């Protein structure tokens, strides 16, 4: 994952002159452009169709329905889904769930990532081995014992803590922090130690400001996990007042009672509300997947 972060930075330096030289390469260039355009259309069309469908007052699933028709536009689907799912409550629940996971991951993840990268202590190898091991154990396989422990034994069903607990520290984010802290030059830390700075001070005022891009990457990666998560909150929230939007919308889909005039319109309106924050955040910050000016901290 970390490699992907820097990949564009490297790409920008790629020599453009090697692309599209000579006739056979040109044919290949056209072919790959066609493939890329087709793939982009296939990737994006469902999103376009989601928005168009959410705005139709009369559902039109024909070919003409794929184009917005001014006579058939409405925001009624949004109020229809809001009548069935309290969108504000569901969004607040999603926000608390996601925010809790983000806070824990940033705070504890930076600490352990720094320790794994920069500190010599007994047991470091074991902690790192555990970090790699948990990536292999798929979460769903733990769902039954976790359900028994968290919902039954600890009584944390319909509770934000119970929702957050299994995701509290994202191991992928820990791994990213470690990789970024590793990339910092050793001289930086030697100098800080010679100057008498303690580890907490070194971490807070020297290392942390240099790994801001990692923080942003970790936030973006961690955000989509709990925001999009369905299975776990679905298992432990039965009270609609505590359900995140993904769960509330899924329950609406699976019980798609035709009690609204345009059930698909309502589903798509809910889908737009659920998809928009993650997509917007990703598009807004996508350039931060790119720049990693780590070298600037050492030179000079």
């Amino acid at each position, binding site marked *: 994952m970390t490699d*992907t972060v820097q*990949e*564009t930075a*490297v*790409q920008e330096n790629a020599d*453009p002159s*090697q692309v599209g030289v000579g006739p056979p*390469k040109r044919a290949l*260039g056209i072919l790959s452009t066609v*493939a*890329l355009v087709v*793939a*982009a259309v296939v*990737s*994006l069309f*469902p*999103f376009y169709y989601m928005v168009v*469908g959410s705005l139709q007052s009369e559902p039109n*699933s024909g*070919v003409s329905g794929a184009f917005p028709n001014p006579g058939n536009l409405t925001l009624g689907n949004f109020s229809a889904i809001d009548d069935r799912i309290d969108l504000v409550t569901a969004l607040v629940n999603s926000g608390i769930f996601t925010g809790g996971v983000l806070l824990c991951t940033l705070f*504890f993840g930076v*600490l352990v990532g720094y*320790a*794994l990268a920069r*500190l*010599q*202590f*007994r*047991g*470091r190898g074991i*902690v790192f081995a*555990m970090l790699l091991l948990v990536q292999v154990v*798929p979460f*769903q*396989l733990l*769902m*039954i*014992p976790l359900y*028994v*422990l968290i919902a*039954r034994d600890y*009584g944390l069903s319909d509770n934000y803590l119970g929702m957050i*607990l*299994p995701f509290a*520290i994202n191991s992928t984010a820990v791994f990213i922090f470690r990789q970024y802290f590793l990339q910092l030059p050793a001289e930086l830390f030697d100098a800080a130690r010679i100057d008498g700075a303690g580890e*907490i001070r070194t971490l807070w005022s020297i290392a942390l400001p240099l790994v801001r891009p990692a923080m942003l990457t970790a936030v973006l990666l961690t955000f989509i996990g709990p925001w999009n998560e369905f299975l776990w909150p679905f298992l432990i929230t039965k009270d609609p007042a505590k359900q995140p939007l*993904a769960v509330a*919308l*899924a329950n609406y*889909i699976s019980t798609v009672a035709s009690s609204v005039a345009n059930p*698909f319109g309502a*589903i*798509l309106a809910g*889908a*737009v509300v*659920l*998809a928009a924050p*993650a*997509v917007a955040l990703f598009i807004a910050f996508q*350039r931060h997947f790119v720049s990693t000016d780590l070298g600037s901290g050492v030179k000079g």
Partner: protein
Amino acid sequence: MLGRQPIGLLFSAPYVAFLLVVFAIPLGFAVWMSFHDFFFTAPGVAVPHPFVGFDNYRAVLSDPAVLSSFAHVGVFMLINVPLTVILALVLAAALNRAIRGRVFLRVAFYVPYVTASVAVVGVWLYLFNSGGLVNKVLGPLAPDPSWLVNSTWAMPLIALFVTWKQLGFFILLYLAALQNIPKELYESAATDGAGTWRTFWSITVPGVRSATGLVVLLAMITGANLFTEPYLFTGGGGPDGASTSPVLLMYQKGILQGNPDVAAAIGVILTVIVLIIGAVNRWISERGER
């Protein structure tokens, strides 16, 4: 004794505690549960959970619904894994050459990955229901009964959906791997007069070999975890159970029907299969490195 910077222990302690509470203890508990007679009781009621040996495993392995759920995941992987590897590698290679619009394309491919399954399942349901846009376009070619209520097409459609949704992530993995192939290899191939296809096959494909191993492994783990899509697309594994997955059965047996011990046994079997797949995958890619 504790190393040069023992404060590292303090920094790691919350994470270690988290791993114990969320991974190690539940993992051990799952194994324990699968060998005992375990059922839900009111909180605080002490009831014996006698050891039953392999009874739960016997129940699981003699249940045709469980066996067919594993077969469904097999069908899923047969479609999803090769499609993912080929599409992700071809698109990453094309994207790597592209000069213009690269940022837009990356975003376009990645957007399905960052979106909640629940949200995009909603659109796919609208697209693929019997009166949906896809069937209107296909006309008489549309399957009857329609995709998700057709026991032949339900699982392949789910596999197609997951391929579509995850593709952007795998394209990024391949893009990173492509960056690590030394440019000199391509230059010497060009000097030797190797054609595009030859270059792709002899330099690009072996050059991203370890990434391919990772893509295959992650795609298979996704398959083993399949739950949300069959649950939402087919109302819990229909038609006639043709799209059930092991995790869906774990939910139904463990939580809806109150047999967490049987569900835990399914989970253990699934974990063992995933670990074997991981080991084989590693063995193959390490052999290839030599």
